[in-house]
């Protein structure tokens, strides 16, 4: 919590003026488009996407890797974008929920989420979907128990879990049996 210490004198901070503010130039390919950008070292990939690139499909639910709403695919792997410093992802290929549909056709996981009603408020949904796409690619989930376990990094407070599992099973079947 952004509180200040209850005890005076603790947590002495370096003064703001002394902090160097060097920006870094990085190159990212986001949803297929390569971009060169100036980023501050403290800018997370999540804040870069949401605030600088206006790609607000990727959600901030906790900002601490505790909910999965910020899940994106970096070089094909699902990660929590809230804990990744953008500067450290120089050269990476990033896919967000906005980049999954092709020419207006939904990704099979997106379509399955609608069909199975795998969401309610929709706020965790982009993270769930990116996570599910990552899961299918990883190929470690072979049954419902394994889907549940390997989707547990995405919290859904609306409680759509049974439908999320059903949607992923549907997408898996479409992809040809188990993903492995």
């Amino acid at each position, binding site marked *: 919590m952004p509180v200040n210490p209850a005890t005076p004198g603790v947590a002495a901070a370096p003064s703001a003026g002394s902090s160097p503010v060097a920006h870094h130039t990085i190159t990212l390919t986001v949803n297929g488009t390569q971009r060169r950008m100036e980023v501050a070292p403290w800018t997370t990939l999540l804040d870069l996407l949401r605030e600088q690139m206006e790609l607000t499909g990727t959600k901030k639910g906790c900002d601490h890797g505790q909910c999965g709403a910020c899940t994106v695919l970096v070089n094909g792997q699902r990660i929590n974008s809230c804990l990744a410093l953008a500067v450290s992802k120089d050269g990476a290929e990033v896919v967000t929920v906005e980049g999954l549909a092709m020419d207006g056709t939904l990704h099979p996981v997106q379509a399955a989420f609608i069909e199975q009603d795998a969401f309610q408020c929709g706020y965790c949904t982009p993270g769930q979907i990116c996570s599910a796409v990552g899961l299918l690619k990883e190929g470690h989930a072979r049954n419902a128990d394994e889907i*549940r376990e390997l989707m547990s990094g995405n919290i859904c407070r609306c409680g759509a879990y049974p439908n999320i599992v059903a949607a992923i099973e549907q997408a898996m079947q479409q992809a040809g049996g188990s993903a492995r």
Partner: protein
Amino acid sequence: MIRFSYSRPGAVGEAVQAVQADAGAKFIAGGTNLVDLMKYDVERPRRLVDVGALPGLDRIEEADGGLRIGALVTNSALAYDARIEQRYPLLARAILSGASPQLRNAATTGGNLLQRTRCYYFYDTGTPCNKREPGTGCPAINGVNRIHAILGTSEHCIATHPSDMCVALAALEATVEVTGPQGERSIAFADFHRLPGEHPEIDTTLAPDEIITAVRLPPQGFATHHTYLKLRDRQSYAFALVSVAAVLEMEGDTIREARLALGGVAHKPWRDPAAEALLRGGPATRERFAEAAALILQAARGYGDNSFKIELARRAIVRALSQAAAGTPQPVADKRIA
């Protein structure tokens, strides 16, 4: 979060120099714990030295009959590596019991060793904490301490080490390879993490300007009789209340070699040589397992909310040893306890 500068050196030596030169500097790799703590203002580095892309540290290699795991191998890459799955299944299962796939994809082997406690007070700068601000006191001792330690505590700190992977590495007697300004050295896993004592602000015996380069696994992987049993407050994506890594080498019904490490109960993965000695050469019976558990927990102390952990650990040890002896390790996705 406070502002900081950032650099990405190209070699280990350069990285070590960068951190050595600046007392406010810290290494960062996966960032899954450090960025988290920086956003809470618990960690306030002035400079981050990104070692995440250092060459050569992301490989798993054969070494002296065992394996050498580069410090930058991600938790996922390690857990799903075929050699780990086959020869060190305990390690694979422990890793997969922790965090989430997203975190495991980013978190590194070296970083896992260095993750900090989940103590509520440590994380909350609105409260005192000896680990965060030495000398301010430990409110957990008489406070909300459901997740806190029962072994090896001090009057200054009752925090636990939260890693699952490290519990397995402790049982496997891994070695940590580090590089510092004075060169390279190896640290036995048991000596890597420390107890809080008078200095709870120091988690490990790694110097601030030393960097972990690899973790070495000895040849013996205990691939037949092993288990990682983790008990927690929800079925996944939660830290251990108590976890037990148990590995055995059996000859018929007799235990030839036994190793036990506990997670969630102490400032470091907890091992007890006397208990392991008691098991060695004895029968694989629940009675003998209970004796070992009693020995381990002899010195355990509860602080109120967490007092249940003593009994829970006792039962978990017996159960884990039963699983290991029977060759029925705890599965990760099937939540029925084997």
